[in-house]
């Protein structure tokens, strides 16, 4: 039960029930769709990128509590940042949720509220849920006009067959 509370912290539950920046973004000049075949989740991320700064960002789609909250909190975290800052934040976030971070990064100030996702490390099959919006954002910023799949970006950690 302790681990479950770590995973589904109040902040995460709140963002999953009331996602911020939800909906198609008017005036977006970058977009990408992310797909997690494990749970059938699809999320589209919209960005208005100006002079390499993420002036505005939104997302829509369906997902589990972890991926919806992650998308919601990601949009809050990267809004107003430069592309390089957003990508660096993703790397830091990825190390946090896969447990590859050292003690110093666990409380890395740049992660801010995103540290509530540290509980994901105890649930390896859920890492893909938390990273889906980030991979999608990365694809949108790179101008990749195709669906990104967590199976390709995170590797086959969990089931995709077996009847």
């Amino acid at each position, binding site marked *: 039960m302790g681990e*479950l509370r770590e995973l589904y912290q109040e902040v995460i*539950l709140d963002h999953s029930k009331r996602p911020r920046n939800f909906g198609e973004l008017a005036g977006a000049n970058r977009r990408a769709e992310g797909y997690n*075949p494990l*749970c*059938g989740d699809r999320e589209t991320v919209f960005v208005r990128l100006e002079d390499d700064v993420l002036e505005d960002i939104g997302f829509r789609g369906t997902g589990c509590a972890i991926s919806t909250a992650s998308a919601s909190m990601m949009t809050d975290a990267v809004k107003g940042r430069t592309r390089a800052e957003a990508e660096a934040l993703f790397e830091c976030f990825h190390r946090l949720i896969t447990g590859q971070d050292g003690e110093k990064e666990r409380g890395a100030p740049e992660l801010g509220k995103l540290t509530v996702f540290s509980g994901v490390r105890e649930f390896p099959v*859920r890492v893909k849920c938390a990273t889906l919006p980030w991979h999608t954002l990365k694809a949108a910023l790179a101008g990749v006009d195709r669906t990104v799949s967590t199976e390709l970006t995170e590797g086959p950690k969990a089931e995709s*067959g*077996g*009847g």
Partner: protein
Amino acid sequence: MSTVLPARDRSEGRHLPLDVEALRRDFPILARKVHGRPLVYLDNAATTQKPESVIEAVAHMYRHSYGNVHRGVHQLSVEATDACEQAREKVRAFVNAAEAREIVFVRGTTEGINLVAQTFGRQRVHEGDEIVITALEHHSNIVPWQLLCDEKKAHLKVLPIDRTGEVRVEELERLLTPRTRLVSVAHVSNALGTLLPVRRIVEIAHARGVPVAIDGAQAVPRLAVDVREIGCDFYAFSSHKMYGPTGVGVLYGREELLEAMPPYQGGGDMISSVTFEKTTWNVLPYKFEAGTPDIAGAIGLGAAVDYLTRIGVENVTAHEEELLDYATRSLSALPGLTVIGTAREKIGVLSFTMAGIHPHDIGTVLDQEGIAIRTGHHCAQPVMEFFGIPATARASLALYNTREEIDALTEGLRKVERMFR
């Protein structure tokens, strides 16, 4: 080994078909805990747990009688060959095939269907021809036919389902044309639990001269299957879903069809003579068994057949029907829970969604309670699309499941509800 006699269900004073508490002791894994809780294993449509007799048959093989089959004059090879062929005979009797040579050992249901597609299919299907499947198939009974149709410029036609998850069999007649070369259908749907009227499907198809292949992966562990009574031409199933080891499965094919089909893979054991000019194929079933087979797996499968035979598959059917009924009533009473798949004839599988809660979150919370279910699309994405949902949560039953375990599931789902609402 436990003796199986009807036991009295104390809660309702009714007779249950199986003495489940005794049977549970046959499965060592059921004694373990998961996250500190007793394991409640309800992911049996994905794979079933193994009784001691199966584990022991495999171990005994490696400890005492292991050699390669059909090759050596030495004692171990003879013992291994005998054991493997005995397993084939057990499987033959279990599904009531006419001849043991109609039982081909493959890696599993998926390979069985691919074998039919790549041999029978490539030989008989040509440009403009048609293959008919249903809308509730597992990907393993969709993709092999798509590959074949792509190669041959043939067409895949789909028999629709209705909102309850029943196949609209009355439309099969209309779907069959002079170009139809094969009908391939599931016996029991892995995503919805629908039991398909396979005898009727075979009757309709055969009346038009069209052969029928059946994906029996979910049927063989829970229904007495008689391939001759069904009248099908091919029937594929997996050992690991019927209490046997992974890595082995069965393709039953009518002898006449198997004889006429080209080999599947080339290699050792599938030939009778090889020169660089000409190779002659071995007799059935070895023509389709290139290379060293999963010898220990086949023997373990034989032990699983023995186990199911001792218990009586019809008792497993009755047990799972009773339990599915109980589970359906228990879960349907939960607010916001919708059962997906409400066919009149249904067995072993309970798929559901909870309003506003993603199946993946349901699965994670239940796992922490020691309850194993599957969440996702169940390798049946077209079924999910039909119902307009990305995924379901699925509890699937086995002979060792109890009402207490269903109660634990219900309680776990109440906790899910409290957490996410």
